[in-house]
């Protein structure tokens, strides 16, 4: 009887993992922000099957696991294969100076968040402004985040280099809360790549959150490559705010991991902005990938494009839930949402929920969602011209994904993704 009373709730048990982290390095206002998030957590619960926002994704198996705070160093070598001048590497949420390298560029700050917290005013002003206060995983990150990247492009700066950020889950049962911040001042431009990798087999959990502030006339392209081990759990929150006439593009490329959940929230705070949200998911095994996007058109004359494609093989599950919200003032909005899925086996499943919520009349909003399989006729056409079955399938799948690959604005990354596609589907049944 006594045992029952001392048993901890699922949530407390999960949160107890973070009790050991030393946050004494945080000063004001970061210390207070943490405290606020921690207070909010006491009234929150993990999503259940009844939670609409998590309808198709069960987090039970994720939160039930035992975790440990991972090592801050790698025990084995890992080939990062990053051809760039600027790369910050984080291991289980901690900055690894040893593995990182940077070449300073004038007008750009690129450093670990922990370092930027020591007196960087733009960071202090904006930190934790965009994170979703009502979402439990975001709040956990706000309360217990370790380190991450701070990127700041100053006014009018056009970054020459491509900026890489690599998060590595190392060691079995590793848990981490990486936290990133990107600030683009007026008229600046940059391209960034965020990669999630695993350095070992076995499960791990990464709960990351990135805030992007894209200033007036600024242009930011973000490429996210999710390529962890097949047992890894990843929840990724990307929160973006766009000012007038800015451009923001985000490509999310999900390649491996047991459970991936991407929450992408964009707030259009100025008029004449343009936004691209792209997602490419190549699923295999028992993978479960869930993309949730929400874009708030708060000002007139903004354009947004959304293109998500999934190929679900084996017993995998792909989820897409996109929402376009057009506020009454946002006249002349032009929003397009497209979701195309290909299901390759009977064990695989795809759930799609493209939503529109529109309160302005002079708008053009549309969405399309298709789910199907390879076009038999196209396949026959290729075969009748002497192309083998495997090759013909590869050609068609390649064509299906090509428009997304073209969206990647960094050439060597585009080649890298193309190589993954070629390898993955050259041997398709």
């Amino acid at each position, binding site marked *: 009887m006594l045992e029952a009373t001392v048993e901890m709730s699922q949530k407390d048990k999960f949160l107890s993992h973070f009790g050991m982290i030393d946050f004494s390095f945080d000063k004001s206002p970061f210390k207070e922000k943490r405290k606020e998030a921690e207070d909010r957590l006491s009234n929150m619960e993990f999503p259940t099957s009844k939670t*609409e926002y998590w309808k198709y994704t069960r987090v039970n198996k994720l939160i039930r696991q035992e975790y440990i705070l991972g090592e801050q160093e790698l025990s084995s070598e890992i080939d990062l294969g990053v051809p760039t001048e600027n790369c910050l590497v984080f291991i289980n949420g901690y900055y690894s100076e040893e593995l990182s390298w940077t070449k300073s560029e004038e007008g750009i700050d690129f450093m670990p968040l922990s370092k930027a917290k020591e007196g960087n005013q733009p960071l202090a002003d904006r930190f934790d402004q965009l994170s979703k206060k009502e979402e439990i995983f975001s709040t956990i990150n706000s309360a217990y985040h370790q380190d991450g990247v701070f990127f700041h492009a100053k006014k009018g700066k056009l970054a020459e280099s491509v900026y890489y950020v690599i998060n590595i889950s190392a060691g079995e049962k590793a848990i981490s809360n990486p936290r990133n911040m990107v600030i683009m001042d007026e008229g600046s431009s940059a391209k960034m790549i965020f990669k999630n990798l695993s350095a070992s087999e076995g499960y791990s959990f990464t709960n990351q959150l990135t805030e992007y502030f894209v200033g007036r006339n600024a242009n930011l392209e973000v490429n996210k490559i999710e390529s962890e081990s097949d047992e890894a759990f990843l929840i990724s929150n990307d929160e973006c705010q766009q000012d007038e006439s800015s451009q923001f593009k985000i490509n999310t490329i999900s390649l491996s991991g047991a459970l991936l959940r991407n929450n992408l929230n964009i707030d259009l705070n100025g008029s004449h902005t343009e936004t691209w949200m792209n997602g490419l998911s190549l699923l295999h095994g028992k993978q479960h990938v869930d993309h949730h996007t929400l874009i708030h058109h708060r000002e007139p004359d903004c354009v947004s494009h959304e293109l998500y494609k999934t190929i679900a093989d084996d017993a995998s599950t792909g989820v897409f839930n996109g929402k376009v919200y057009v506020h009454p003032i946002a006249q002349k909005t032009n929003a397009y949402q497209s979701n195309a899925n290909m299901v390759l086996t009977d064990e695989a*499943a795809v759930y799609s929920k*493209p939503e*529109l919520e529109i309160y302005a009349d002079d*708008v*053009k909003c549309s969405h399309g969602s298709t789910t199907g*399989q390879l076009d038999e006729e196209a396949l026959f056409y290729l075969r009748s011209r002497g192309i083998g079955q495997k090759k013909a399938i590869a050609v068609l799948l390649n064509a299906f994904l090509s428009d997304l690959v073209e969206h990647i604005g960094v050439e060597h990354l585009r080649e890298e993704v193309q190589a993954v596609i070629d390898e993955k589907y050259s041997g398709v049944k």
Partner: protein
Amino acid sequence: MASEEELLEEITNSEYKYGFVTNIESDKAPKGLSEDIVRFISAKKNEPEWLLEYRLKSLKIWQGMIEPEWAHLQYPKPDFQDLHYYSAPKPKKKLDSLDEVDPELIDTFNKLGISLEEQKRLTGVAVDVVMDSVSVKTTFKEKLGELGIIFCSFSEAVQEHPELVKKYLGTVVPSADNFYAALNSAVFTDGSFCYIPKGVRCPMELSTYFRINEAKTGQFERTLVIADEDSYVSYLEGCTAPMRDENQLHAAVVELIALDRAEIKYSTIQNWYPGSKEGKGGIYNFVTKRGLCMEDSKISWTQVETGSAVTWKYPGCILKGDRSVGEFYSVAVTSNHQQADTGSKMLHIGKNTKSTIISKGISAGQANNSYRGLVKINKHATNSRNFTQCDSLLMGNKCGAHTFPYIEIDNSSSKVEHEATTSKIGEDQIFYCKQRGMDEETAINLIVNGYCKEVLNQLPMEFAVEAQKLLEISLEGSVG
């Protein structure tokens, strides 16, 4: 408001033609819902034991449920203990001529092209001449009887064909399905029942008959349509004429059952009182409609929704049999302060099943119009096909149009397509029409009608004409 109520009193349908009710003038159950009330209703209707048990079981289920809040609707929740769940319709004051009827209503009737005879009947004006409809009704009944078609009120069916009712009641919409279905299952008062025997093709639109037969069925209506193997029926419920009803809450349940190779075409036009221009009053319409398709059968839903303050309605099909087909065509118009959350559910269970959803929403004034749909393809429903199109038209900058589709696919041989658009009427289209001498209002009517054509074409002919006019009336004054 008082005058409004008087008006309602005057113009609501007065005739009550079902024979089973006699001497019930004083019957009105006390407010509130309890086991006693359910027993009272059941006893009043002289129902068999099994039906009473069904009602009581439903009541238990309902008591354990909470009102759903997921719909994109905002309205004050009805107080379920402050309602009368049974009040026998009483003959109302008869009017002597159409001159006494609200001129606004007459105006609407004329616009809809409803015949004078029918106008009188709808408004409750005493008709001196023995109305044609009585004889028409009998001929219809004879003709249908010859074919073995049963078409009667639900209460009549319970008395005369209990075996059919018992076999099929609640098989498509179980009591535990949702809050309002459970409520309906506990307290439903009447409705219609239709059975088409094997291999019979119903020779007429049951709509025609229905119109003549129409009577006040109360706020908790229950409809059960069964098409036995190889049969066909086209059924129309509702009316284009404005229905002003004093009951604020309507929670109906409609169950369709299409057995092997049968086809049911169900059309409905709903034009309940939408509330005043300021959004006061109006009817809450919370309806559960669902069809079950066995092998090679087909169910087609067509709806034109222009009335009610709040609509909550998702006609759906369970495509259980192989090669069955489900269709849903809908036009939903909301203006002033109306709100609608409507759409369709298509559950593909059998192999080679097909479904089509065409939904057209029009939102004007300060109204909100949402499409909410589910297309689910089960793992074993191989080679299934769905096509969904939902378009929204916005008129004015204070209204909203929303789309919430759920698409779930569990196998690799099915194809599902969904597309949705939201926009306003193109200025170039209006310009084109005006340039050819039409005024703006006519131009908009023309464009709106063209926009809804795909759905209106599915309606039985005479109703399609009325529905077109109804759209015009519903959108009157909402432009400019």
